[in-house]
């Protein structure tokens, strides 16, 4: 009964994308503008994913797996570029390689099962992004930035990523291991709620941030 919510996610993404476009003047530098690009990319993927089956006759897992690959790589690169500590930055590269390897291992081992989301590389991706985000939070909480981190768009973006992915992971794993029955309606509801929270974080970040903290 909540299936319809699935198709509303694209409007959430559109909304935060538009807010992002309006606050472009507050976002100096490539890194900050990259956030808006990422959001618009997710809008594009939502639309393509929606019509993919109609256009090609294939299941749209290809699109979502591709999106997962690109978005996690982008998140890892993004957080890595914000980190200041040298060893953390090195860990960022290591994590990226690890994720790409896990993604291709997933393709390799579950060859017969391409029409499925790559739950294990998703799990690894979430774990890696989570660790990197924690490193980022540790870094800002241990510096002078602790007083003004709320005014940085990066903090809100990373919080949004965490809010979406961290609760989604146990839910996905529970479905995957048949702990709970897969139900399209509930899946849509959960996805919608988490997307709503994540995009709220993005929008708060765009509106609340101040230019001098966005470098």
């Amino acid at each position, binding site marked *: 009964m909540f299936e319809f919510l699935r198709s509303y996610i694209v409007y959430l993404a559109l909304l935060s994308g538009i807010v992002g476009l309006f606050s472009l003047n507050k976002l100096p530098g490539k890194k900050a503008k990259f956030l808006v690009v990422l959001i618009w990319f997710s809008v594009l993927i939502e639309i393509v994913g929606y019509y993919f089956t109609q256009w090609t006759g294939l299941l749209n897992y290809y699109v979502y797996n591709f999106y997962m690959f690109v978005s996690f790589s982008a998140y890892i690169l993004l957080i890595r570029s914000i980190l200041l500590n040298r060893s953390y930055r090195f860990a960022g590269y290591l994590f990226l390689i690890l994720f790409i390897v896990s993604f291709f291992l997933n393709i390799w081992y579950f060859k017969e099962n391409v029409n499925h989301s790559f739950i294990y590389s998703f799990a690894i991706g979430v774990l890696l992004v989570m660790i990197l985000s924690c490193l980022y*939070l540790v870094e800002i909480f241990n510096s002078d930035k602790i007083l003004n981190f709320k005014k940085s768009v990066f903090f809100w973006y990373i919080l949004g990523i965490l809010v979406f992915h961290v609760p989604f992971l146990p839910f996905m794993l529970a479905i995957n291991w048949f702990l709970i029955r897969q139900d399209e309606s*509930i899946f849509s509801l959960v996805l919608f709620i988490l997307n709503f929270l994540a995009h709220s974080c993005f929008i708060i970040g765009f509106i609340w941030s101040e230019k001098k903290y966005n470098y």
Partner: protein
Amino acid sequence: MERKEIQLLVISLGIVFLTLLVTLLVIFFYFLKKKNSYLVDKMESELYFQSELVKTRIEIKDQTLSEISKELHDNIGQIISVGIMQLNMHINSEKIIQPNELRDLKGILAKSLDEIRILSRIINKDNLLQSNFIEAIKQDLERIKKLKKIQYKYTLSGEIPLINEEHDLFIYRIFQEALHNSLKHSHSDLFEVNITTTDDLFCLKIKDFGIGYDPLKTNSGIGLNNMKLRAKLIGATLIMNSDSSGTAVTLEYPLTEPDET
């Protein structure tokens, strides 16, 4: 909705929100802890800075007082003693005093008056320091030139920098200490003071041409350590070079404030 569906819904949302809650709580409490320790640290360093500031003020006053007492005893006292001795001579000789002898006496009195004027300027230095510490440095040099018969070379290039008042005090105290050390230990009769200001650096260099010291051997390190500590406290660096041809103390104070984020 069927009973089973509702169960599934509750379980699913339970999993999702529990994880969400735990994540946010962990982040929040970590943040609180860090913020508290950050604020405590900041307060402590502020207190430390203030206490050093008070100490610096007291030291400047002490040094000024001891200089005044020394000058009173060594200089003005001597000059007036000479005057009194001459007066005694005249009283005892019972001759009529000649005008030129009186003129001599007047000269002595005028000289002691001059010395007293110089001295009064030192006492006023605290007021002076409030407007400009470079002026105070100049006055100091002028005073030692007059009273101690020591020559100095003084060069000032660039504009007079705008440094906040508290940091002024520290810089002046470091200068005073360095000058005091040189006067006491170096046996040099020539000083060089260079003040250079560029856009992002204020540089104060004091050089003497005395016997120098071995930085590794001197154990009277409290004064030097204090100077270094204070330089560090205001974000400046203190460089000391010493060999047999003299000692140079350089203070570099960056004028560009680090970004406050």
